[in-house]
């Protein structure tokens, strides 16, 4: 296996605050990799660096060996990197189907003249397929703003899939979902990974999901990586237990 995404010594500073400090991580092709850590550990900041919303102060990020540290946000979709947002970023006035079809934007035609011509049929077919697989089919013509929270989260994933990603970044996809919905998400992500070979990197707090689907887990605390390994290794790592539960001394106080 080779690394699809490599983060090397990335540091992000906001003014005087160091949000992420010399963080390195490699995501293997075909893996489901989770990035966990307490609130404010810098997980979303790392995500925002990968999807080119933030500029790292130091360090390098490569995708399939290509340095992406200088690229613009919009050029990631064309490279097969899709993401979902923790605080939903949907096209609220559009229907579920239209949201997914817009997800395929980067994959249609590139020349200026082709840009003026209407969208091909296959985009529609592909969008219908995605709705089917994500279980959103019954909401096809509902406006995104009219969906309940769980389905809105799912729609973020569906739209990301329309990019036909090789790497899918999911920022807390299970947050706020009910346990039945989390089980369905678990099945969906596993099947995307196994049948379509999509590499998944997710930030998540719901341990039930993380432990069940991840091949590998990296743990961030206060902007630094404190552990990395398989779910079992990470679960028993003393620094992880400390970061999540506090030290014995602190617990007594």
């Amino acid at each position: 296996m080779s690394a699809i995404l490599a983060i090397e010594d990335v540091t992000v500073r906001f003014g005087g605050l160091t949000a992420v400090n010399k963080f390195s991580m490699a995501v293997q092709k075909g893996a489901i990799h989770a990035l966990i850590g307490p609130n404010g550990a810098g997980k979303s900041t790392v995500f925002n660096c990968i999807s080119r919303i933030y500029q790292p102060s130091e360090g390098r990020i490569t995708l399939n060996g290509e340095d992406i540290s200088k690229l613009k946000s919009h050029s990631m979709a064309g490279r097969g990197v899709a993401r979902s947002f923790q605080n939903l970023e949907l096209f609220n006035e559009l229907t579920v189907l239209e949201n997914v079809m817009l997800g395929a934007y980067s994959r249609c035609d590139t020349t200026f003249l082709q840009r003026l011509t209407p969208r091909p049929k296959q985009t529609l077919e592909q969008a219908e397929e995605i709705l089917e697989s994500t279980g959103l089919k019954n909401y096809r013509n509902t406006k995104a703003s009219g969906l309940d929270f769980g389905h809105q989260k799912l729609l973020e994933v569906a739209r990301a899939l329309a990019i036909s990603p090789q790497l899918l970044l999911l920022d807390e996809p299970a947050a706020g979902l009910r346990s039945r919905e989390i089980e369905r998400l678990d099945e969906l992500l596993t099947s995307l990974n196994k049948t379509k070979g999509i590499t998944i990197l997710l930030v998540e707090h719901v341990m039930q999901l993380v432990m069940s689907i991840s091949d590998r887990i990296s743990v961030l605390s206060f902007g630094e990586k404190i552990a990395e390994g398989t779910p079992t290794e990470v679960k028993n790592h003393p620094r992880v237990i400390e970061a999540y539960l506090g030290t014995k001394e602190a617990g007594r106080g």
Partner: protein
Amino acid sequence: MELEVLSLFLQQGIASGLVTGSIYALLALAIVIVFRTTDVANFAEGEVYMASAYLAFFLIAIVSMPFWIAVPATVFAVLIGASLFQRVVLTQVAAAKGVSVNLVIATLGLSYVLKGIVRATGFGDTPRSFPSVMGEGSVTLGSASLTYLDLTILGAALAIMAVFFWMFNYTKIGRAMRAVGMNRRASQLVGINLGHVQMLVWGLSGAISAVAAILIAPKLLMTADMGVVVTLAFAAAIIGGFTSLPGAVVGGFIIGITENLVGLFVSSRAINVAPFVVIMLVLIFMPQGLFGGKVRVRKV
């Protein structure tokens, strides 16, 4: 008032209202597309319109360029100029991360620059009349009468709107513009180049303003202050909800028709007040404008 006169006034008011209204509608469209995709209320809209009229006048009357070259040349020049303003000035102002009012101030700056340039050329000193290529003559519709020029204005404006709506709804670049208007972050996520779209929208708004200017100029006396008409386009945009394109068009026609009916039925001195009475009524009874959708409760 006799019934016959009443019916005549009504028909003539509506017909003439559609003609002036179509110009307000074009200018309101230019304002609304810019606002939707770049969050800037363009206070230089009136001066872009004014400068376009002068540029066309200069090319036709001074350089003696044939009409059919001068018109596309003007539209193209204004398109490029407006794009460059967005690219060079607005992105810099936005990058400075100031309050959003800075962007509005930048457009006010542009309006002074354009007025200054027109005044500096000397053409703005005395009112000028724009050469018309349309023949004299008029057509009677019912009991209303419209000149050939009026019909050309209305027809051309409607055609421009139709092309524009087609582009906005059925082309890839149009979809990108709509997407940017709805959610900028999500647009970039799906691969839309935000910078290009915003620049293109400014260019388009400039082109629409230039077309409006060239259409209406033969009916007016041109002065460096002719841009004040844009107040009515803002009124049209507000009536339509300020973010809705059909709203801008309907708003433009409502303002145009109201002005003309008030002029005929009430008094020509009341014309200037009428649009603002309409705005107030709309805002009292439909605070979101006619096409602004429902009042949304935002989570805080």
